[in-house]
């Protein structure tokens, strides 16, 4: 039997999802939402989910509180909406918490993205322990101090050996409590995503922000299909180097552009660490399309044909429009290489991010 509340809950979820989807473009392009790495929940302001009423604004109203402090002392943390006594029960949601995974799912639904079909080995998993509870036996290193003393205090009061004037609490063997753990499987990665970005002078902050947002959602979509995913980041101007995630999104270099340097580095790392037989390899390259010259373009074609395209599930090239870039590389690739797993996409501005994600992931690679 479906519990009655499940239906109401589903109804609420549908309403929230509907509201978010209505304005998906705006929500996913909010850069600050994806600011913190490792944060799994995002708060999305959903308009009109709260039932409106004729009511006083709480800021205007003020209220009555209790505690120490002189006049003028800040309360620290806002008072509850409606502030206590006499206000009506129940809280009001202005922000709805949605997990990134759910958000990614919504993007998938909105863009009608097909599921990715992984190749290669089944996913592997390892085992890791997690503290979940309390038990009566265990090693001294895991003793829970608070729970142990609480038990001891309890025993002493009930046996009458507790003296409030001399509050001495001595735990005995039976009072000891220890933290306990459960084994949980952790997936082992079998997919790797390379993010390559042009950081030459012509790539401005807005261009990088677009790359950051787009790669964030691409990353999450791929992650939703594999149990574990590794990411590698490479930046290049005239030369390429591998960097960590933070640096990837903040570096700003100047000078010329030699795209082949990045392709070369990516090929080397991939061949060394991620043999194509065992790994699902994804490469995304973002640039404004200005390359050093036709000579280097030739070098790029060669690297793509011989090393990257044969190994990768998908190679995506995203060209971000910039004021100074010529954007010639896009056309060059289009003319010189035809491969099923090479996808080209042009990103004019923030509003084109969704369309570009669709370009890259619309084939279910």
């Amino acid at each position, binding site marked *: 039997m479906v519990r*009655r509340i499940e239906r109401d809950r589903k109804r*609420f979820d549908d309403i929230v999802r509907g509201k978010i989807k209505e304005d998906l473009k705006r929500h996913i392009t909010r850069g600050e939402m994806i600011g913190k790495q490792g944060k799994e929940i995002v708060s999305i302001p959903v308009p009109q989910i709260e*039932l409106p009423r*004729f*009511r*006083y604004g709480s800021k205007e109203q003020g209220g009555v*509180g*209790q505690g120490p402090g002189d006049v003028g002392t800040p309360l620290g943390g806002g008072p509850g909406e409606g502030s206590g*006594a006499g*206000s009506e029960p129940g809280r009001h949601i202005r922000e709805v918490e949605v997990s990134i995974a759910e958000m990614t799912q919504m993007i998938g639904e909105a863009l009608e993205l097909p599921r990715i079909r992984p190749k290669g080995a089944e996913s592997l998993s390892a085992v890791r322990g997690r503290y979940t509870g309390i038990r009566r036996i265990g090693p001294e290193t895991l003793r829970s101090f608070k729970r142990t003393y609480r038990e001891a205090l309890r025993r002493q009061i009930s046996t009458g050996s507790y003296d409030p004037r001399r509050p001495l609490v001595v735990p005995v063997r039976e009072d000891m409590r220890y933290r306990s753990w459960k084994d949980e499987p952790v997936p082992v990665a079998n997919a790797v995503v390379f993010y390559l970005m042009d950081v030459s002078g012509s790539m401005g902050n807005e261009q990088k922000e677009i790359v950051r947002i787009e790669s964030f959602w691409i990353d999450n979509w791929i992650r939703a299909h594999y149990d574990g995913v590794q990411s590698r980041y490479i930046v290049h101007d005239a030369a390429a180097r591998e960097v960590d995630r933070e640096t990837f999104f903040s570096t700003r270099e100047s000078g010329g552009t030699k795209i082949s340097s990045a392709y070369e580095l990516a090929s080397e790392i991939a061949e060394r660490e991620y043999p194509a037989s065992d790994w699902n390899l994804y490469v995304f390259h973002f640039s404004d399309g200005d390359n050093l010259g036709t000579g280097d373009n030739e070098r790029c074609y060669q690297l793509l044909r011989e090393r990257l395209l044969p190994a990768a599930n998908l190679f995506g090239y995203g060209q971000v429009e910039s004021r100074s870039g010529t954007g010639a590389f896009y056309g060059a690739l289009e003319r010189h290489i035809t491969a099923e797993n090479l996808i080209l996409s042009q990103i004019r501005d923030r509003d084109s991010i969704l369309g570009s994600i669709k370009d890259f992931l619309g084939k279910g690679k």
Partner: protein
Amino acid sequence: MPQPLSTQLSALQEEVEAHARDYGLDFFETIYEVLDWEEINEVAAYGGYPARYPHWRFGMEYIELSRSYAYGLSKIYEMVINNDPTYAYLLAANHYVDQKLVMAHVCGHGDFFKHNFMFSGTNRKMLDEMANHASRVRRYMERHGIEAVEGLLDRCLSLDNLIDYSALHSLRAPAAPGTGQTEEEEGSREPKRMRAKGYMDSFINPPAAMEAERARKERVRKEEERFPARPERDVMLFLQEHAPLRNWERDVLGMMREEAYYFAPQGRTKIANEGWASFWHSRMMTERLLHPSEVIDYADHHSGTMATSPGRLNPSKVGIELWRDIEERWDKGRHGADWEACDDYAVKRTWDTGAMKGREKIFEVRRHYNDVTFIDEFLTADFVRRHGLFTYEFDRRTNQYVIADRDFLAVKEKLLFMLTNFGQPTIEVADGNFLNRGELLLVHRFEGVPLKLDQALETLEHVQSVWKRPVNLETFVDDEPVALQYDGTTHWTQTATADRS
């Protein structure tokens, strides 16, 4: 599914209730149901009733409760509903001592529900009535579609604070459609003359009296032209009677109004009721029920429910302390003219007439007071000082709430303002045929605190979709009188000029 009460808990219930009766508490038969945390969250999301009409906000509430339970932020220990028999719920995973505490607490609530005057008009078979509402709403959903009914529920719920809080114990039934409120015959503006022969006429129908009668009729007629004759605070009732609704829509609006009236007394007695229940669980546990091994858990739990934080007044805490204060004051005779006149602190501190009227007094107070009168009469300067109450306000410069005042009168005034009319703005229907165009005119009785404007505009849209013709709300924005109008497509704002007092 609820489990039957175990033998151990049944025995406990008997024991607790025997003590409660011994203290003088009196309540309806109480039925306990033991639920696991998912079930208790579900029941809590439904406001305590196992059967409610389908609505997304219950789902929203459930998600909130479950999440805050999962994070360990809150746990529902106790829930009790005003019904005969009274229903109360126990969390299966609770310690025995917690169940004991909950039962003692529930006895307090049960007694308050049964005897406080605010609840005298509430439907004591509300559990059945709610289930009844649920099946009616479900039937309408099958017939008219979920969206249509849900949309109407949303609109009704956003208006459900527009009821007459001063008439809680006499729920008015809507007038049957077609019955006019006028007894006067249509058309006759002339006073009724008694038949008289010509020469007697000026005696039987004296001209002065006839003139007075004519004037009276004219006055009545003028009054009746105003619609409603007097400003109507029960906006929901007015809409139910006069908005162009289909029968099922009228029925849904009526049900939501009935539920709003049923719940309103609980909101108006939070401090007194929670305080009363806490007062009694504390008294019963510490004097009679606690086993020494349970003291730690009890103290931990009790102090948890009494916790205060600067920005939030805990109604249980304020309530329990007020009840204790009243009991002590009447036990020691610390009230009346002599007490008030005395300004010697040393004398006051040891004042004890040995009156021992405390118990009698608190039982009398729990019968005749709601939060407003309770605070008005029993909050003392001494109490405010001892418990560190203050008023706070929003400081726009620093963008945070700051303590504004610790003065007794300021605290009392603020508290009373928050409690009056349920902390809700008073909004009345002033004219149901505004400008003679069938528009609705609502007037906000301004008391110095403006409405939340964005919500007010949205709510106005909801009123309009019930009333169908344009609706107007006179209120104050930035201390200026304004009229907000919504005609179904556009919002208009104009400076209000007409003085409507």
